[in-house]
């Protein structure tokens, strides 16, 4: 449905998107995940024909975004970040205007507007459709923006940060709606919140510093990014250095780091591969007659991976600034 090949975008001397390629199947909900300034919005703007790429190629539903721009625009519904709307217009008036721009024939416009209003919960408190956009709360504006994007029932929906600025209830409702829409639309949404993408999307593309660092289903990603398995233990009974030394000698333990917590010592024990050495650690502790108050096995999570990616990007940015 969406095919992006070697897409690169320079803004003057700033490289915003650096040679990215990906493919999106019809009917999937793709999450574009990345820290702020990673190049998410820029990529989406290229896909929606708002900005041209510096080099590379992108096609949507078989149409090239550059040479068949109008055709692509007919197939895409786009909700930009911050949802810009004409504030002085009334909601129904605005939607009717967008419907006209979207080539919806006059007799069908009313029905199209009613359909999206229903879908985006704009029809319930009756007066919302009659209110001026400028008077609406952030959550309602977001819904109007989404309704706008869905008016022409496009096969592809591009949503830039659809839940930013919403309250927790609205976020949950928006996620439900996106999942529901995913049944008959291909959706690309961007976010810098991992939990959100994990919950709503069945395809995640992690982007940082303008490049794709991971691409796959949430399960695939979780498998791919799993860090070394770790055992965390809090022990009392000997000097921290002595504890660390004894545990480092346990079979299958690769590395031990220690942090004193009061008169306890918190040890982070890195194990070989995926092995879990809790039993061995416990055996050692009881042999030595030490006290143990926590023993826990962890594996690197998607969260850790994402934090690391974000951190690396920030470091690179800081280095560039320093140069």
């Amino acid at each position, binding site marked *: 449905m969406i095919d992006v090949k070697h897409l690169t975008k320079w803004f003057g001397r700033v490289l915003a998107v650096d040679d990215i390629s990906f493919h999106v199947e019809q009917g999937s909900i793709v999450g574009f995940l990345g820290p702020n300034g990673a190049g998410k919005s820029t990529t989406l*703007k290229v896909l*929606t*024909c*708002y*900005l*041209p790429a510096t080099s590379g190629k992108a096609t949507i539903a078989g149409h090239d975004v550059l040479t068949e721009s*109008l055709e692509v*625009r*007919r197939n*895409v519904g*786009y909700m*930009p970040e*911050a949802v*810009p*709307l*004409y*504030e*002085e*217009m009334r909601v129904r*008036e605005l939607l009717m*205007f*967008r419907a*006209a*721009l*979207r*080539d919806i024939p006059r007799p069908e416009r009313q029905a199209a507007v009613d359909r999206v209003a229903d879908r985006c919960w704009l029809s319930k408190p009756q007066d919302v459709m009659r209110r001026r956009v400028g008077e609406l709360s952030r959550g309602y504006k977001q819904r109007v923006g989404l309704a*706008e994007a869905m008016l022409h029932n496009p096969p592809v929906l591009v949503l830039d940060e659809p839940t930013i600025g919403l309250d927790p209830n609205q976020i949950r409702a928006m996620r439900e709606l996106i999942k529901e829409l995913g049944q008959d639309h291909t959706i690309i949404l961007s976010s810098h919140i991992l939990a959100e993408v994990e919950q709503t999307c069945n395809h995640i593309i992690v982007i940082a510093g303008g490049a794709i660092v991971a691409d796959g289903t949430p399960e695939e990603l979780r498998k791919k990014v799993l860090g070394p398995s770790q055992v965390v233990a809090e022990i009392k009974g000997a000097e921290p250095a002595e504890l660390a030394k004894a545990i480092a000698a346990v079979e299958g333990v690769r590395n031990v780091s220690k942090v004193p917590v009061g008169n306890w010592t918190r040890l982070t024990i890195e194990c070989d591969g995926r092995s879990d050495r809790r039993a061995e650690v416990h055996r050692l502790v009881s042999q030595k007659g030490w006290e143990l108050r926590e023993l826990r096995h962890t594996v690197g999570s998607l969260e850790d991976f994402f934090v690391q990616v974000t951190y690396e990007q920030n470091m690179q940015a800081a280095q560039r600034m320093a140069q």
Partner: protein
Amino acid sequence: MNKVFTLARRELTAYFFSPIAYIIGAGFLLLAAGWFFLNIRIGGEASLRPLFDGMAIIMVLAVPLLTMGLLSREFDSGTIETLMTSPVTDAEVILGKFLGVMVFYLALLGTTLTFLGLMAAYGRPDAGVAFVGYLGMVLLGAAYVSVGLFASTLTRHQVLSAVVAIAIISLFVVVMGLIVRLGVRPWADLADRLNAMRYFKDFSRGVLDTRGLLYFLSATALFLFLSVKTLESRRWR
């Protein structure tokens, strides 16, 4: 073409919701009426000519204030993104906005017909002169509006856009006339050919000259074309 009308209608309705349009409208009418009565009091003659000439000058300020938001506001609020990702061409956007302002301009101009009515009640204004004069106002307005529209495609700051538009229009309406008066050759000849007021004065006198027609129409076309090009260039910068 349908979309041009859709865009024009939105632009026009937006004017009726913005206080600035009313303020400009009221300001224009006040100045034009003041000018009209002043001319009758002092000149003692009920001639249409000074009225048209005066309105042409007032419009130098009024039109840029009307057009300053056309695209600047869209750039500033970000609505340009949803507009340009809809299946509309850049030319349709420019034409739609041009048409929207022109209708508002014509409505504003239409209110000055009351002056004509007043004159007809007390004297006998020449119908031919009135017609050609109003035709001149329409042509002049189209040129002003296209310059204002062009200035609006250049920046996201409305005030800046108004200043640029006023500068460009005054260059042709005021500065060229001054250069002609300075009389330095060969610049004076060139300035005389570019002087908008020279052509407009034919109209306000009731003389229909194709040179004037051509001057205003080609200025309008040129600035509309430039507007489309600057709007397109946003995609490449």
